[in-house]
């Protein structure tokens, strides 16, 4: 093999054989890291399920909290979490998507919108306990909703609003310009082009953002405790103004007790949380696939 001299490594036999080696070394290294991370996660989840799954029986799901570990059930907490998710869905999703549509489609590109964008990005990173303090003052006291599931839901909505806005904006940005232009060139108003074409096209991305938001909201404990969710509630919420508890709070309550049986309950509660999260994600994946096929 003749040597072709180039500014880079000469095409010698040694160099050619060396290249694949360093490449495969890098691939091996990457695989190792990924496996390590996944292994760690698997161990965590498996350990959790081993602890918690034995407790998965009907009485656990329908029962109410009790001082006796074997009789303690998760029904009020489960219902509380579902109520919270419902309230977040009703408030945070339209507000977040609407804000994203306004910022992306209607707002003039000046320093004010730039300032708002910066703030939203920062708000996404603010510790959620601060939202709890805000919720306490604003919803519990000023609005007078007391320590109800409505206050909790609204507080959580604030926590996840920046997440939804950012994800929705990304999704809107990814809609091809040609789609908007096609609609506008036919004499559509901006709202018509957004509602009929841009939003449907951005829906998979927005959906993913919403699922991310729900996943975050369902696990948030600090803001709920700060705004006063009680750790011992015996009934599921019946109205938006009812007192409430949530899955992570119930788990926290049980973990804090010395008896091992309660720890089992806590593991079961957290497993249930994971199951709910997994269900959300599966629904989102299915919906995305369906919508993307249509597009």
């Amino acid at each position: 093999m003749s040597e072709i001299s180039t500014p880079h490594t000469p095409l010698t036999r040694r160099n050619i054989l060396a290249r694949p080696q360093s490449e495969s070394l890098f691939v091996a290294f990457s695989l190792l890291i990924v496996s390590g991370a996944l292994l760690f996660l698997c161990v965590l989840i498996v350990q959790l399920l081993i602890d918690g799954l034995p407790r998965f029986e009907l009485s656990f799901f329908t029962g109410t909290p009790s001082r006796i570990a074997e009789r303690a059930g998760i029904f009020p907490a489960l219902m509380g979490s579902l109520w919270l998710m419902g309230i977040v869905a009703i408030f945070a999703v339209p507000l977040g998507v609407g804000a994203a549509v306004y910022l992306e489609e209607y707002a003039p590109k000046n320093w004010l919108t730039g300032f708002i964008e910066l703030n939203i990005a920062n708000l996404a990173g603010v510790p959620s306990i601060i939202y709890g303090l805000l919720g306490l003052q604003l919803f519990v006291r000023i609005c007078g909703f007391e320590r109800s599931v409505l206050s909790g839901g609204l507080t959580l909505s604030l926590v996840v609003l920046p997440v939804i806005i950012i994800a929705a904006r990304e999704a809107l940005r990814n809609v091809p310009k040609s789609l908007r232009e096609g609609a506008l060139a036919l004499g559509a108003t901006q709202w018509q082009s957004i509602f009929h074409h841009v939003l449907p096209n951005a829906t998979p991305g927005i959906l993913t953002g919403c699922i991310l938001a729900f996943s975050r909201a369902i696990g948030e404990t600090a803001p709920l405790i700060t705004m006063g969710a009680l750790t011992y509630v015996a009934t599921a919420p019946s109205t938006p103004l009812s007192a409430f508890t949530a899955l992570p709070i119930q788990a926290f309550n049980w973990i804090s007790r010395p008896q091992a049986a309660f720890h089992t309950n806590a593991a079961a509660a957290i497993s249930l949380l994971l199951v709910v999260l997994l269900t959300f994600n599966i629904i989102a994946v299915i919906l995305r696939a369906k919508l993307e096929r249509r597009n």
Partner: protein
Amino acid sequence: MNQSQTILQVPTVKSHAPKTADAIAAVTVNHVGFFYGAHQALFDICLNIPAGEVMAFIGPSGCGKSTFLRTLNRMNDLIAGARLTGSVTVAGEDIYANSTDVVSLRKRVGMVFQKSNPFPKSIFDNVAYGPRIHGVSNKNELEEIVELCLMRADLWSEVKDRLFASALNLSGGQQQRLCIARALAVKPEILLMDEPASALDPRSTARIEDLIGELRKDFTIVIVTHNMQQAARVSDRTAFFFEGKLIEESDTRQLFTKPVQKQTEDYITGRFG
């Protein structure tokens, strides 16, 4: 001058069938300058586009012909920092006046884009979208309009059995004809075409050109093209742009056989471009 005659074959001017008298408009452009922010893209353009004729805009890449085309239906409004000086009048109305309804302007001045952009909906819904947003809700009426427009766009025979299939499954040439049908469905007076065949194979291109030949009877058509032979084939009048300025505009046959400006002659004889 003789070089132009040998290099470019200019077909004899086609005679037109009598034009439908209603809904054909003329465009008058007066001393138009156009800016993207601080950068000036068009300089002092004065042009009159007669009603019922096909006008071609030719010129090298980046000369501003697409930008200028988009000023005629205010599609440039979508670009931040876009600014126009001078006036553009469509059928006697200044379209950049404060009182202009841009939405109804775009209904009267339709546009077909370089890369076909059908909506990710069915073929029927694509064509019916325009009439629907302008108030047509009667199912029979919509079906009539869709059939008529698909026929005029020379696409009906190919899609009549699958009107509710997705438009994205059509070939490139079919998609472009669908976009033309979609533009026709809102009954515009003027049709702007921004290099409609540049992304298509020669056979599809020929079909589009035949289509323009048919549509010229009822619409004023402005077509931007980088293909001079195409301009010579389809248009009545041609305008040559260069570096944001209108260099020359005249009867197509005249421009290609006896151009007045040297730059025009250089371009059409291929000395640059």
